[in-house]
């Protein structure tokens, strides 16, 4: 059993297509998507049109929720740009998606933490350019009562694999579409594999045509996004 986990595509269609191609080459039994689908000034409409053709389980992230809940004047600059591009059918699709999900009692999906789509699970939120892992007690506390061998989260754009003392796995696949301070522009996702009853995970970084995505951001008036896309060294505080 092999499952690809994607998250935080943020409207970067080129990155998503490169990840899909890598997944196709690997061969998987399922794909799971952890949300923040469209919030980016690259190609939100092209991205959501592709996602609407896919049937894989998808949950929404905090930025998807903002687009559904907030009036235009309460959105940040990027989400306001995206809201201006989306059509009713796109919003209807996003509204149909759950905030958390689970796959056959084996794999649990959330965007931030099990109780909040804005709370990071496997990282202390970055200060400047550093992000660190929280201590064992706080990581473990958020998993109490979740009886799943694998728990998935996104939101932080930092890929990590944690295995709790009882053997349960928590995986953040990182971000497909926009890399924050970690030094590489490549698209990130994760692969889960169950062998002999045991789950393991790997974190993948896939090269893609990030210049093409950067040009889209630039054209739409978001040069700081273009810079982040090309280098992987820009912090979230400069983007939203």
């Amino acid at each position, binding site marked *: 059993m092999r499952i690809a986990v994607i998250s935080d595509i943020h409207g970067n269609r080129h990155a998503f297509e490169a990840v899909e191609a890598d997944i196709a080459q690997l061969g998987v039994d399922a794909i799971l998507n952890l949300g923040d689908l469209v919030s980016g000034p690259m190609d939100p409409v092209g991205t959501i049109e592709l996602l609407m053709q896919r049937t894989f389980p998808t949950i929404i992230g905090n930025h998807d929720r903002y687009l559904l809940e907030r009036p235009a004047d309460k959105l940040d600059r990027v989400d306001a740009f995206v809201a201006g591009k989306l059509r009713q059918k796109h919003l209807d699709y996003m509204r149909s998606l759950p905030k958390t999900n689970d796959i056959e009692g084996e794999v649990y999906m959330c965007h931030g933490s099990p109780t909040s789509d804005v709370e990071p699970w496997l990282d202390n939120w970055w200060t400047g350019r550093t992000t*660190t*892992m929280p201590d064992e007690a706080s990581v473990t506390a958020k998993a109490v009562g979740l009886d799943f061998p694998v728990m998935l989260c996104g939101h932080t754009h930092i*890929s*990590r694999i944690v295995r709790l003392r009882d053997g349960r796995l928590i995986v953040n696949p990182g971000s497909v579409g926009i890399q924050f301070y970690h030094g*590489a522009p*490549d698209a990130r996702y994760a692969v889960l594999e169950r062998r002999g009853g045991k789950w393991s995970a790997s974190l993948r*970084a896939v*090269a893609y045509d990030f210049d093409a995505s950067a040009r889209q951001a630039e054209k739409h008036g978001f040069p700081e996004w273009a810079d982040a896309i090309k280098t992987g060294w820009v912090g979230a505080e400069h983007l939203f």
Partner: protein
Amino acid sequence: MKLAILSDVHGNLHALDAVLDDIAGQGVDATLALGDFLSGPFDPVGVADRMIELDLPSVRGNHDRYIVDGREDDWHVDAYVRSVLAPRHFDWLRGLPLTAVHGEIVLLAHGTPRDDNTGWLDGLADSNAVLLSPEHIEREAAGFPYEILLCGHTHVPRTVKLADGRLVVNPGSVGLPFDSGSPDAHYAIIEKRRAGWTVSLNSIPYDYQAAANLALGRGFPKWAEVVTTGWPKPREL
């Protein structure tokens, strides 16, 4: 080209064999090893014999050097390892270079290409591993015009792409996953594709308790905790 990369085995033969089993199913062209092979209270002799038998392209780590040369503030673990090795193991360690080049495009180093005891991608802040600055990472890469620059030492799996497209990859630690939140054995696979290199940072479950029991039997309980949980910090060792 598809390559497996392993580093920082630290004497943990159970973890090493689990990784080698996984690599065997991946169809790689070569497996490269980045040093700190033996420094751990598990089975350093077993690891040394396995590495001598495999004869992989390898570089030495700082602890491999300490085991051979000693140092002023010798680690009790290095002293233990030194006491159980045979002359053939010392000969093998002495023959390991600081850096090596594989296939003309891949540079192997333990810390940085100039220093086996300097982290290339990560440093410690308040005892937490954090990514170092792009200036530091670029500076340590200056003068090494290889597509792929490999490093270990920090035990933090990580890949960074330099401004000119060169890729620095740290596979994490096979045998001693401190400060990682997982006891799994870590290693990496890199593969050249049309659009560039794909990196896979893999984590492999194995019989952690068997390794821990060896450390406990030799009187190293903190090391047993690292290999069963992955949470203790390097300074706790």
